[in-house]
């Protein structure tokens, strides 16, 4: 059965390692923070200028001066630090953020990503996404395997304007975990009860399948 968005977040959380500095994009990526494994200490970065992002505030303690990059009210934690936007993207560019998780509209088998613009529609802008994908060492995309029209979002080549090239390392969708290798998409895991054939049929590019593909574990 296909995963819901919470389960996608939960699966991605398993990629976290102790000591990681992590930037979580808007949408499903934000949910990853709810599933950080016990014993694993990670520090969340918000690119508007905060390391050590805490949970949402309790009612009445929210502050207009303390928001995350999604413009939600948040809190700090002991040992948080606040800095300006240049330092924030400075640490992103210099590779200090161990893992970036973000959503996408399309990902190509070369690791190209498109997630900011649909021609003909109002364009809101790339925000910090182009900086993040150009710099992060380890990028995981969280998205549905297909779009609402049922078309694969994993493609030989992106059709939409790119956000970055050659950068995505792994994709976690509602039906599969896919690694991007030098030879293209490689299936690592499948959602419980979802067959390899279904994943292949929903992937508009070659999918490398080696041996038997395990079901995801949570």
């Amino acid at each position, binding site marked *: 059965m296909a995963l819901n968005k919470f389960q996608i977040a939960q699966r991605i959380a398993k990629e976290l390692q102790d000591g990681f500095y992590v930037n979580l994009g808007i949408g499903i990526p934000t949910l990853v923070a709810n599933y950080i494994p016990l014993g694993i200490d990670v520090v969340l970065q918000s690119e508007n200028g905060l390391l050590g992002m805490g949970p949402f505030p309790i009612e009445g303690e929210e502050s207009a001066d303390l928001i995350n990059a999604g*413009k939600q009210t948040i809190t700090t934690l002991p040992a948080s630090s606040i800095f*300006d936007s240049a330092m924030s993207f400075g640490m992103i560019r210099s590779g200090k953020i161990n893992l970036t998780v973000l959503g996408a509209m399309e990902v190509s088998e070369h690791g190209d990503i498109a997630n900011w613009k649909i021609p003909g529609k109002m364009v809101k802008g790339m925000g910090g996404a182009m900086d993040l994908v*150009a710099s992060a060492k380890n990028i995981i995309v969280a998205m549905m395997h297909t779009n609402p029209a049922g078309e694969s979002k994993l493609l030989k080549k992106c059709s939409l304007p790119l956000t970055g090239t050659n950068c995505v390392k792994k994709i976690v969708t509602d039906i599969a975990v896919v690694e991007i290798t030098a030879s293209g998409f490689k299936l690592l895991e499948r959602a419980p009860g979802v067959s390899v054939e279904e994943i292949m049929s929903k992937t508009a590019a070659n999918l490398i399948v080696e041996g038997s593909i395990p079901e995801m574990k949570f």
Partner: protein
Amino acid sequence: MNKLYKNADDAVKDIQDGQILMLGGFGLCGIPENCITALVKKAVKNLTCISNNAGVDDFGIGLMLQQKQVKKMIASYVGENAEFERQLLSGELEVELIPQGTLATRCMATGYGMPAIFTPAGVGTEVAVGKEVRNFNGKDYLMEYAFDADYAIVKAWKGDKQGNLIYKDTARNFNPLMAMAGKITIAEVEELVEDGELDPNFIHTPGVYVHRIFKGENYEKRIEQKTIRKS
């Protein structure tokens, strides 16, 4: 050396039609509310505004858009704003979208006297069109130029009469970067303190970068997305 201005009207009085303004803030967080109100009142037109976002329909830079004061918007993320979209689609408003880190670093470059910087953001995308691409250590970078703005308008938490500023929490964002980057920098502060009250070790913007300062009033500090947890 008087940097102290009476209020926002006084501080923005010489801003002219057609000039380039930087405005601090991220979303509605840390925006120069008083100066925006004064600019709307002053009805100055054809402005180019450099700011990470463009406000919402009835707050922030959105108020200037309503009065059709903005000719060009340079931002990384816009369109929480119906009037913005209308003007964009009708061709009344020109928009240049640039990556957020590029925006921040181009401000810093100005303040640090660096005419250009290199960033990998946008390589291989339409952002790279027409720009110089240069390879360092096997990785491609775009050369991006420092900004050239007539005025930088920022909002700080506290400031003294010499123009030293400190910001609160994530209301810092672009403010200290833009403060460094204006030919003339105007700072509005929630609290104006006496010289000596701010610890020299913890000044975010040294006064040398600030030309005008005034105590702002009636801050609304609107929250864009109030998110809370159960106790």
